């Protein structure tokens, strides 16, 4: 590599500033929100990570995998199981959830690498997700079946996380770290390789890039992120139930990715926020959920295929995804 003169101290780019401003502003939410709103805000962060993770596989890598609900459930159950049976503290269980989510991702990627792609991948991962739910229900001695597995007192570094406010600050920290880490990865050769594979796997290989490794990496990272989201979900509900990881969840995840913008990290954040908050807002019209999510995906596919973020990108270059650092 030719010699470059690295700038010593660079001012934060506009992008960078926004990145830190949003969570800083968010940190003030507990001053306004009642317990209910705080819970919703916490759920928003859970779903932001769910979407961030899912988008990596379907948006960035362009693989149609339904295993996201499975990653989510595995993360949540792993957290509850590690805390209940192995006496893990929450922060350790969180790591366990990330690792087990990652392992589930590895499994999915192995299938993808065996040439099971597109619809085959979709169907096999759909089956995998439903099979996991069957396991949660029937592995009763461990999971307590449909009664749900309660979490022991959730503490982080010895401090209780029972209140929504405490959960909020822990979740905020996790969310910021995971989103920043994902952003770092995407704005590097890793992110470009993933995108290149989506566009044309053969060409990518011809550039000396090991496509298999990056497919594995994407699934594992996606699984870990969603596993972490699962651990947050478990802490939020304090009891893990099989019903939380059924087929309705699949469409919710899809909708979040599509509405925000497939293949866009900022889009994931937007999709997670909007589609967690909106249904809460529409609480008064129960029964509309399937119609709502179905209609919203169709509308996006027909009229806004790149999601809300593409609208914003027209307004401000801040929302344009960049896959390099300068």
């Amino acid at each position: 590599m030719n010699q470059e003169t690295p700038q010593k101290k660079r001012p934060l780019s506009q992008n960078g500033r926004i990145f830190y401003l949003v969570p800083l502003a968010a940190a003030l939410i507990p001053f306004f929100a009642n317990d209910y709103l705080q819970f919703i805000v916490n759920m928003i962060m859970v779903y932001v990570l769910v979407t961030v993770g899912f988008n990596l596989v379907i948006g960035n890598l362009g693989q149609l995998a339904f295993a996201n609900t499975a990653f989510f459930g595995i993360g949540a159950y792993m957290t509850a199981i590690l805390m209940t049976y192995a006496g893990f503290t929450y922060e350790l269980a969180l790591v366990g959830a990330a690792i087990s989510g990652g392992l589930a991702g590895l499994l999915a990627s192995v299938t993808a690498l065996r040439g099971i792609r597109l619809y085959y991948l979709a169907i096999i991962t759909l089956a995998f997700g439903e099979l996991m739910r069957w396991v949660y229900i029937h592995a009763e001695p461990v999971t307590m079946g449909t009664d749900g597995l309660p979490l022991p007192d959730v503490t982080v570094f010895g401090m209780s996380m029972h209140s929504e406010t405490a959960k909020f600050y822990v979740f905020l920290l996790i969310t910021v770290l995971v989103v920043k880490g994902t952003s770092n990865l995407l704005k590097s050769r890793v992110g470009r390789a993933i995108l290149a594979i989506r566009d044309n796997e053969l060409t990518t290989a011809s550039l000396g890039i090991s496509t298999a490794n990056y497919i594995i990496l994407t699934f594992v990272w996606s699984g870990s992120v969603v596993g972490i989201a699962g651990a947050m979900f478990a802490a939020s509900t304090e009891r893990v139930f099989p019903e939380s990881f059924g087929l309705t969840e699949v469409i919710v995840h899809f909708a979040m990715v599509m509405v925000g913008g497939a293949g866009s990290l900022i889009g994931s954040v937007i999709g997670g926020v909007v589609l967690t908050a909106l249904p809460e807002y529409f609480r008064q019209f129960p029964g509309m959920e399937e119609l709502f999510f179905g209609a919203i995906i169709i509308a996006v596919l027909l009229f806004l295929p790149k999601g809300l973020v593409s609208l914003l990108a027209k307004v401000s270059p801040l929302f344009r995804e960049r896959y390099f650092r300068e």
Partner: protein
Amino acid sequence: MKTTSKWKLPLGVLAAMGIMAGTAVADDTTGLTDTTIKVGVMGPFSGNASSYSKAQIGEMAYYKMINDQGGVHGRKFELIEEDTACQPAKGIAAAKKLVSQDKVFMMHGNSCSGVAMAVKDIVVESGTPWIVAHAVNPNISMPPTPNVFHGVPAGPAYGYTMGKFVMSKPGTKNVVMVEHSNDWAKSYADPTRDYMKTKGVEPTMVLAMERGQTDATAQVLKIRQAKPDFIVASLYEAETVIFLKDLKKYGITDIPVMGAAGTDLENTLARIGDIDTVKNYYVPHAFIDTVDGPGMKKWNDMILKYYPGETITGFSYVSIGSAVAAVQALKNAGPDLTREKFIAELDKIKDFDTGIFATNITWSADDRHGVKESAVAGFVDGKPTVMKSWNQPM
């Protein structure tokens, strides 16, 4: 430190707002005005268990009727419906909304045991009086907590009823159980098993039949081989019909089938359309009469008055009895209502005839399972009949 000074003012304002918000803590008269009582009604109004929400419909019809009669001590019920979709996470959001945003005086409802278990801690911590009016998991109100009451027969009560009925048939030794793998079915099947065990009978076979299955051949053929004296079928409405039809198909019409609460005879018969297939089907029936019986007419009329077009099934009545008891307790608490007084009055409800439950309600501070037993309904001479035990009409 330019940034700090820039943030000082807004931060200070926010902190002050936070403190102010904090001081507005829930007190004993939360959710009350001189003319209203806010009641939170949580139920699965959407999602795949939405047929349970008939229970909330019945209960709300009752409250609306009381409102039309002038309310309680001049206060009318303001019902706030919250959907749980039978999903724990949604239920938690609903409970938190009712407690910390709508600030209801009391909560009455909940159909799904999973959701009820998930929200239990939240409700207990908030001190909101909560009458669980449909979910049957006994652990929701056991061990007792200061503010949670069970207003339906809980699982053990149903299990006791189902088990007792099965064992009341002379010579019952060989029992086969068929059930869904979900919390609903387990809450009936497990206590039934427990009761039968006390009588020295273990099920010969436990078979799974999942929701959405359209065929029960495998189960029925296994039953045919086992030749049981009684079958306990903890199945949801649709699957009950499929199961009974398949029994008939393979010529098993003489083995009695004990169903779970949630199906009723009239609708099951209507769906099957053939009395021969259902003549040996029995269901726990917590109410004084069958759906089409004269005893239920006034309740049916009440529901249809406020919810025209509602199809009435056994689910429709489940929560009305506890609403009757709650209204009684509110009356007894007098015009200067507080949560404390209300809870005290609920605990004074003893052997209370609700006019709809076959069994009276009794609550006390150390036993919140208000309804201890249920009757059973079955066909006698082709007519739906409520009965106490095998061959013993009420």
